[in-house]
């Protein structure tokens, strides 16, 4: 003799049938029971009602919340890709890596500059003094008579005189044309 079936057992079997989990031999027995058929239809309607309500609730959630969720997930995933910044960040990173080289190079350059300073030829200070600036007008007493270093008078003869007074020296180059000389 089998165990007598209660109403609760029937309801559990109906729910299993609605979920497609009831064995085949029991499905035939439930199909012939009109009360069980009504309960089964009611269960189906209730399930559709709950599913529709959940879908509407999902649509009401702001897309930005999902985006935040995805960003958080993406950040938490470790990656082997090296971090890439802008141009300045890459330059800074390069200097960070080669700072030691730069210091060594700067020290070497300083040594080269010091050598260049020591070894460069120094101009004659006297010469440099005279190559710059305007000339000085000395007092008359400190001047010397003008010196005629070269004189050419192609068409005549020349005489040089030096005059001196309180205003200074005057060199006079006197040129007499050859025609005049011949005419005298």
């Amino acid at each position, binding site marked *: 003799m089998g165990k007598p079936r209660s109403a609760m057992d029937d309801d559990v079997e109906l729910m299993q049938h609605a979920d497609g989990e009831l064995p085949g031999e029991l499905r035939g027995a439930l199909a012939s029971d009109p009360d069980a058929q009504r309960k089964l239809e009611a269960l189906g309607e209730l399930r559709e009602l709950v599913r529709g309500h959940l879908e509407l609730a999902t649509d009401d959630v702001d897309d930005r919340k999902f985006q935040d969720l995805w960003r958080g997930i993406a950040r938490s995933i470790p990656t082997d890709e090296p971090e890439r910044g802008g141009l300045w960040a890459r330059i800074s990173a390069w200097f960070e890596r080669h700072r030691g080289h730069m210091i060594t190079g700067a020290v070497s350059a300083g040594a080269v500059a010091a050598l260049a300073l020591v070894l460069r030829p120094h101009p004659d200070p006297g010469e440099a003094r*005279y190559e710059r600036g305007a*000339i000085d007008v000395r007092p008359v007493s400190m001047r010397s008579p003008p010196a005629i270093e070269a004189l050419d008078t192609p068409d005549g003869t020349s005489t040089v005189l030096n005059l001196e007074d309180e205003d200074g020296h005057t060199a006079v180059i006197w040129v007499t*044309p050859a025609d005049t000389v011949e005419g005298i």
Partner: protein
Amino acid sequence: MSVRRVWLSLLLSTLAGPAIADETPAQAPPAAVSVTCDFIEIGATKAKTPSIDPKLGPIEKRLKKAPFSTQWNEFKQLSETTRKLDKKKTETIPLKQGSATATLVEIVDKSKVRLTVTIDNAKGRQAVNTTTLVDAGDYVIHTVVLPPNDDGHLVAVTCK
């Protein structure tokens, strides 16, 4: 120190060294060697009434002395030109009668100039070609006697 570090250091010092060495002396560029000279052209004649152009004030006293005073008694300024002469750069000096050139050969003792002056007469023939060492403030007066009246054509030069 790795080989790569050595090469990088050498490269940096090669690039930076000359730049630093060039900057360090901080020498001002050499100033141009130049002087300012006045060229005064004078016409001299024998006249009944002696006169000296007032414009010739700075050399008037010299013109009143021999040999000028014995040859002429009237002096007129024909032109006056002031030129800045750069070393070894020949400048043309315009004259009323003919033309002239002047070349600053060098400055000596910061108070003298070695100057080459040429004067061509009105016919374009060279009358004088001279190189003179003269103190600043002193004069060189190139005097050419012109036929047929023995008038005088003078070019006085002074530099400072």
